[in-house]
């Protein structure tokens, strides 16, 4: 099972600072098992956000948010509610956030941190998408993960080696930051990159050594 923990409410409210309306999505797969994004947690989140003055334009629960085509199909039924929301909040693993980002042209806020993939990669098998860093950064990267997809794991990219949309490492590797910039440009949210992202907390990542935390 992919293990997630909900991000603190204060952090989510920071993400939603500029927005009044949001569409909420939960996952009936692993996130339900972790009690971070199942039906109950989506209802709880709805209530907490409404108490904080946000309008929830709708909610949806998807069986496996790591299944991109299932996400696309399910969200089609909620088109009006999604279009009337300024953004989406996804209570699921990093794969689910990225699957949602790939089918909706709006900012998708990650509601959880992915702390372990449990050796699996969900149902979206094509390519590496989550490195279980435990401190999800998809919020400011347009739903494209620079930890999994940038060769230098840059948080303030792209480096000087980005050329024609490709990474300096190989012409077969797309530059993750090119993709991030293209997506945020399309969403009109390049402002997310006009600030400096602080050094990352690697202590919550499996990359710091599996035995150190879990």
């Amino acid at each position, binding site marked *: 099972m992919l293990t997630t923990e909900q991000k603190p409410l204060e952090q989510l409210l920071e993400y939603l600072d500029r927005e009044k309306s949001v569409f909420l999505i939960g996952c009936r797969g692993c996130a339900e098992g972790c009690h971070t994004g199942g039906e109950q947690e989506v209802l709880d989140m709805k209530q907490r956000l409404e108490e904080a003055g946000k309008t929830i334009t709708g909610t949806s629960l998807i069986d496996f948010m790591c299944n991109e085509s299932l996400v696309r199909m399910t969200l089609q039924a909620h088109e009006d509610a999604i279009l009337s929301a300024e953004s989406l909040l996804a209570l699921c693993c990093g794969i689910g956030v990225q699957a949602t980002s790939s089918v909706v042209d709006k900012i998708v806020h990650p509601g959880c941190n992915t702390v372990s993939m449990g050796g699996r990669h969900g149902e979206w098998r094509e390519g590496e998408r989550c490195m279980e860093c435990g401190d999800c950064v998809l919020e400011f990267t347009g739903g494209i993960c620079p930890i999994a997809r940038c*060769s230098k794991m840059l*948080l*303030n990219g*792209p*480096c000087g080696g980005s050329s024609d949309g490709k990474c300096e490492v190989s012409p077969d590797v797309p530059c993750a930051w090119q993709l991030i*910039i293209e997506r945020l440009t399309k969403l009109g949210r390049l402002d997310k990159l006009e600030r*400096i*992202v602080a*050094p990352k907390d690697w202590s919550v990542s499996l990359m710091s050594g599996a035995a150190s935390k879990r």
Partner: protein
Amino acid sequence: MKSNSKLEKILEGGHFAITGELGPPASANPEVIRKKAKYLRGNVDAVNVTDGQTAVARMASWAACLLGKEEGLEPTVQMTCRDRNRIALQMDVLGIAALGINNLLCLTGDHQVFGNHPTAKGVYDLDSIQLIKMVKDMRDEKKFQCGDDMDVEPRLFIGAAANPFADPFEFRVVRLANKVAAGADFIQTQIIYNVEKFAQWMEAVRDRGLDKKVKILAGVAPIKSVGAARYMQTKVPGMDVPEAVIERLKGVPKEDVPKEGVRQCVDIMNQLREIKGVAGIHLMAIEWEEVVPEIVEQAGLLPRPQVYQA
């Protein structure tokens, strides 16, 4: 003044600066540094000493800087995020400042797959922008990255790189703005052969007022052979070598190509000097240091200004 840097004093004094570059050997031989230093001393205001450039294991930048300092150079330590985490980087920052080195260029670093240890684990705990900010906070706030206090701060003149030719082009100025906001005092750019594109970038830089906030040194390098030019054009990521540059070198007999490369470099320097907001030149005569005196002379940049250093 933020530091005891000669480069800072020259730039703040309104002089047109010129910096050079020195690559340490892939050995423990100090004579290599001493020999290269001869060509640079008195001809440039400061010398960047590379930090495992192209991810090849070489003598440490700080150590080569110290040898260069003994030879009368004003060294600039280059520091990349590829090989060291934030703990090691801060230890080195304190060490180089204590050794009397005044300049630090903060880089992300070439990826390890390009070097002679492609199976090495890349570190990249920080990126270049986070490194700049960390060093600035150490200098100006006397704080470590974790927030702990220190009593004697590293008084370093902080540099950063910019590549106007990498993609996406429109975002490059945003990235420069982030580097300036992080605390960069000076910028050294990627080698410029496409002056027109660089001028476009500088226009965007001026539009944001960044040339008033940071000293921009335009990068240049003489080309020794047509093959080297072609290699840079096709094989080096983030390099822009227009066909006309190669054509000019092809237009002279083979034995005259190095001379023509020098002339071409001087011509580019003269063009760059005319662009508003360019505060100096960063001359990278990599493994061709002996040509530096000639280039600086031909560009009319001698003698170099003298400044008082405590």
